[in-house]
């Protein structure tokens, strides 16, 4: 039906593998990303350096980690606008706790707990009280940022107590030549990919996004599942915050500002559909990668900074457009 904007599920395929692949947005975004990388390797002599690749992968790791959680939220037809503030809150919490002399483990636990708490409030209001995700998480965006200011008294924190070195090594260091946040991303992405496909929880969130009423009637614990995706998304934001603080080496209450739109952009460019029922872990990662490659390339190419926004915006649209056009032939 040419008139309908139905998007194919990344999770299940009919027909042949090949035509399924061609109809898959993730595939096209991956192609676009690889193409961009190849072009850039020839166009600049700094893109394909190991240092730059190290930077690029590390930079998108933070967004991609949160995008994994966001994918789960979007698959249930929800949205989480509070992730940027959650990153700020969790970042402030770990800094304040470690600054006060506690160990890194206590710091991480406190940061993740605070992030999960934000997710839990979102989840309860959305799943059990039945409010619109957009309103709830927009409210929490404001609340989370404000609490971060209250907790840090709006100071920049850059001394992380006795375990400070460990924190900097965790977020800023590398293992086998790969930045630690990237390694964390790889582990989380594989885990989430597996969970989406092979666990009950994974199948249920797709069902909730596909037809919430039907899922409820067939005994899927819809509320519990809906609540859980926001908790997961909060947790991912917390993990990203810990790593980002370690990388930056300092925290202000501005940490993560505006990240919600970046994360959602990555998720959606990676094939998730905001109407629910469609999305994948690999898509989230590849979406984040494409956006970062574009940003990086504009700087390497020395594009006038006023024009950079035009390029980033247009490429996001083009990446998704490319996929639409390639598909319109056979529907």
């Amino acid at each position, binding site marked *: 039906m040419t008139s309908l904007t*139905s998007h194919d*599920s990344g*999770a*299940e395929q*009919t027909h042949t593998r090949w035509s399924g692949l061609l109809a898959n947005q993730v595939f096209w975004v991956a192609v676009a990303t690889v193409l961009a990388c190849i072009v850039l390797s020839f166009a600049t002599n700094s893109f394909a350096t190991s240092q730059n690749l190290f930077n690029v992968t590390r930079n998108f790791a933070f967004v991609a980690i949160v995008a994994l959680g966001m994918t789960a939220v979007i698959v249930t037809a929800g949205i989480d606008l509070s992730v940027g503030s959650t990153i700020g809150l969790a970042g402030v919490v770990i800094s304040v706790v470690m600054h006060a002399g506690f160990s890194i483990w206590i710091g991480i636990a406190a940061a993740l707990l605070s992030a999960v708490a934000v997710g839990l409030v979102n989840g309860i209001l959305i799943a059990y009280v039945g409010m619109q995700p957009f309103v709830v998480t927009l409210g929490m965006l404001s609340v989370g940022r404000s609490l971060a200011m209250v907790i840090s008294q709006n100071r920049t924190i850059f001394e992380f107590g006795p375990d400070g070195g460990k924190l900097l090594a965790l977020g800023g260091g590398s293992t086998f030549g790969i930045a630690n946040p990237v390694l964390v991303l790889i582990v989380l992405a594989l885990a989430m990919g597996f969970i989406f*496909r*092979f*666990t*009950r929880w*994974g*199948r*249920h969130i*797709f*069902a909730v*996004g*596909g*037809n919430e*009423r*039907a*899922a*409820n*009637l*067939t*005994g*899927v*614990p819809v509320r519990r599942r809906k609540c859980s995706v926001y908790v997961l998304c909060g947790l991912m934001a917390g993990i990203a915050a810990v790593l980002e603080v370690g990388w930056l080496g300092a925290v202000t209450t501005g940490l993560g500002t505006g990240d919600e739109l970046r994360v959602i952009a990555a998720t959606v460019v990676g094939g998730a559909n905001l109407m629910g*029922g*469609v999305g994948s872990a690999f898509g989230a990662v590849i979406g984040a990668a494409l956006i970062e490659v574009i940003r990086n390339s504009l700087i390497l190419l020395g594009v006038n900074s006023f024009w950079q926004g035009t390029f980033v915006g247009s490429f996001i649209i083009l990446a998704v457009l490319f996929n639409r056009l390639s598909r319109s032939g056979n529907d």
Partner: protein
Amino acid sequence: MAVLELNGISKHFGAIRALNNVTLSLEAGEVLGLMGDNGAGKSTIVKIIAGNFLPSEGEIRVEGRPVRFHRPIDARDNGIEVVYQDLALCDNLTAAANVYLGRELRRGIGPFKIIDYKTMYSRSRELFAELKSETRPRDLVRQMSGGQRQAVAIARTRLSQARIVLMDEPTAAISVRQVAEVLQLIERLRDQGIAVILISHRMPDVFTVADRVAVMRRGRKVADKRVADSSPEEVTGLITGALEVA
């Protein structure tokens, strides 16, 4: 003893009284045909038994025990399976995933269990074959024809050992060939001692398989008698209101 009893069930939606003091009972191995005009309240009865709504008034008993179903899964845990009128399918999932929705098969050891797609596909294929439906387990429900969708919804009730099966117009969209299969299926259920409520607007179907027929009009039960003691003409009269009470 009746497997299912409704005592004085009423249900309001705001100002609308969809059900008014309905009393009904069902024995094991009995097929009840439930008929009535559009909007008479048939689906509302099904939804109350299925744990989809709580009744505004009245009591439900399953095998003599009073029950209150807060969620659909409560009803299922009591052995009640339902084919909903709108089928309750997720368009973005495959036929097999829809059949097993809410009770996915898993394999593995201890807490490390993964979804067992293989068995789910092969078992769904068997269920569809049993219903003589040409539905492919791996197809997305979004692309299916109306009858294929209905086959998926019916296949669900075959997964567990139900005591009561509620079917809300299960034959509305399916072809002659499969109607016969569904009716046979209902007979097989009865022979296994399962109680069935069949909602249908098709007089011949009801008179073929039902033991008893109950007629609803404007939220009230206006008749409840053995099929042998009734006739299609009488039931039609009751539905349209030409006859007041049987």
